[in-house]
Every structure is written in structure tokens, then in C-alpha cells.
């Protein structure tokens, strides 16, 4: 009786494993697969547009004419501002594009620590070498950002002297080394 069942099971399994493929299956599948293939442009065009939009959004603050940094230039010491050499322009300063953008981890200030644990925060630092200051941005409020960026900025500012932190925009601060007196 047990043998009968084993035989029946083997027969059933064999039957299921040896189903006859429909005639012309391979040919038909190759044709249908080829027909369903997406043209490359359908895939890459939306991706390219999305990348361009993302890039534009990320770079927008640096091209804005009403960027808060423009107002800061007027308040800066003369030696921090690069004057125009072109005589066709007036003597107003211009802001150079960021030389380098770097994302660094800064230790969180005590006000944002959770349960006594230190939390790493991402602060984006943009350096303007000719202007000798650093613009720091993060999702934190300015007060917290000052503490975060202060330490991070030391890594980038040459001289390691004391720094001055000026809030210039919500979630944006400017870090400037304080000039040492000779």
C-alpha cells in the first residue's frame, strides 16, 4: 500500500516536471521580450531631467543676486574682499564662487544631544578662499549650527585662531577668523 503511494507520488511529480512546452514557445518569448524592451531614452531622459533639476536647486543660492552674502560683503574688512581689476566695473566687490564644498561631521552641541549620547551632525561648509570665510549650512537652527559649525570650521580655516560666527540667514552662518593684532 505504501509502495502504491510512492509510485503514485513519483508518477505525479514526473508528470508535473515534464509538461510539454507549447510549440514555438521559445521563439514567441524571444519576440515578446524584445517587444517589451524599453528604449534607453525612456529610462535615461527622466533621470537626466531629475538630475538637472536637483543640481539647479542645490546650486541656486550661489547664483542668487539677492543672496544674503551679497549684503555681508559691504560689512567686510577691505582685505577680505577681492576688488575688481576690470576698470569697466565700478569698485564694488564681487563674490567668487565657492572654491570647495565639503560636508563634514561635527559633534553636536549639548543642546541637541540625546540621552547623554553624542550625535554626529552633517554640516555643509562652503569655502570662499578669496574672501577668507566659510559659509556653513545645516538643517539645524542657527544657534545649534553655530556650535556645530564652529568646531568643523576650525578644520578648514587656516591659522586656527579664534573665529567669529555671524548668523546671516536661517540655517546659514558665516564663520570668519578674527584678525590677530600684530
Amino acid at each position, binding site marked *: 500500500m505504501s509502495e502504491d503511494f510512492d509510485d*503514485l507520488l513519483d508518477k505525479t511529480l514526473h508528470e508535473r516536471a515534464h509538461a510539454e512546452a507549447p510549440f514555438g514557445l521559445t521563439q514567441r518569448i524571444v519576440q515578446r521580450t524584445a517587444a517589451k524592451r524599453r528604449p534607453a531614452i525612456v529610462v535615461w531622459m527622466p533621470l537626466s531631467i531629475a538630475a538637472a533639476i536637483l543640481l539647479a536647486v542645490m546650486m541656486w543660492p550661489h547664483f542668487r543676486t539677492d543672496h544674503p552674502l551679497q549684503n555681508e560683503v559691504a560689512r567686510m574688512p577691505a582685505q577680505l574682499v577681492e576688488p575688481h581689476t576690470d576698470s569697466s566695473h565700478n569698485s564694488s566687490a564681487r563674490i567668487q564662487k565657492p572654491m570647495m564644498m565639503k560636508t563634514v561631521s561635527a559633534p553636536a552641541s549639548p543642546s541637541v544631544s540625546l540621552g547623554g549620547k553624542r550625535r554626529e551632525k552633517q554640516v555643509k561648509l562652503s569655502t570662499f578662499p578669496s574672501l577668507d570665510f566659510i559659509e556653513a549650512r545645516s538643517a539645524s537652527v542657527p544657534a545649534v549650527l553655530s556650535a556645530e559649525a564652529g568646531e568643523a570650521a576650525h578644520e578648514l580655516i587656516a591659522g586656527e585662531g579664534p573665529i567669529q560666527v555671524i548668523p546671516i540667514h536661517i540655517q546659514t552662518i558665516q564663520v570668519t577668523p578674527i584678525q590677530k593684532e600684530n
Partner: protein
Amino acid sequence: MSDAFAGMVERQAALMYRVAYSLLRNTHDAEDAVQECLLKLYRLGGWQDAVDEQAFVVRAMWRSAIDRLPQRSFVEATDEVLPAHHGLNPELQAVKSSNEERLHRMIDALPLELRQPLLLSGFEDLTSGQIARIMEIPEGTVRTRLKRAREELKRRWYAAEERTYR
């Protein structure tokens, strides 16, 4: 379409169809599952770098076919009273009361971890090593599950027989 892909389809399509059919037991579903699986393989690749092309393709096929199973098949059904399989053709409907059909339905009601080695063991062109690679488990585990599957089926079979003749 690349010649390499067309070559792979020529080599594996029939086996893929049989694997799909062994799980789905429906010609149209099996054919659709094969096409869907080949489309994925065409887009994602991977089969060219596989050490064992056959095992790689069968594993992909099995996963595609599982996605087409009706949800209730995942539930461990009772031994005897099972609804007719979704999409059965009229010919199979006619013989559903036969012993063979009853056994088919019992196999379909097995948990997937037991059903997979049991069904794949019916393919003479797959070695136990390949079945292990397809299932991504050791060969010894394949044998254990195969034994468990057969014993479970036998237990259910005789339990159903006993109820019938009581």
C-alpha cells in the same frame, strides 16, 4: 536583442517553462511567468556571470512563478477539502476527483519550503547540488526537506483515505 541572451533563452526556456508549470499547473500562467522572468533577466542581467547558468535561471523562474500563485496556496490547507486549483482547464476539472488530482492538490497545499525540493526532485536534469544552489541551502537540508515532504504527504494521504472509508 543580443545573441547571448537569445542563446540562453534557447537553452533554458523549455526547462523554465516546466519549472513554472510544475508550480502553477496552468499553461497560460506558466507561459506568462516564463516571459516575465526572461524580461527581468534581460533587464537586470546576472545570468552571464552565474557559475551555474541553469541553477541561476531556475531560481529566478521559481521566484517569478511564486509571485503568480494565488495567495491561498501559501496557507497550509487541510488534507482533503481543497478548492479546485485556480485556472484549471476543463480537462483537469473532469479528473479532479481522481487520486492523481487529489495528490496534486495535496502537493499544492504543502508549505513552500517542502514543496520546492519535492517538485524540483521530479526534474531529472537537475542534480541535488543544483537544487541546493537554487534553494540556497545545504545539500543535506534539501534531502531532509525532501524526506519530510514525502512523509507529510503520505500521512495526509492515508488520513484522508481513512476518513473516506470510515
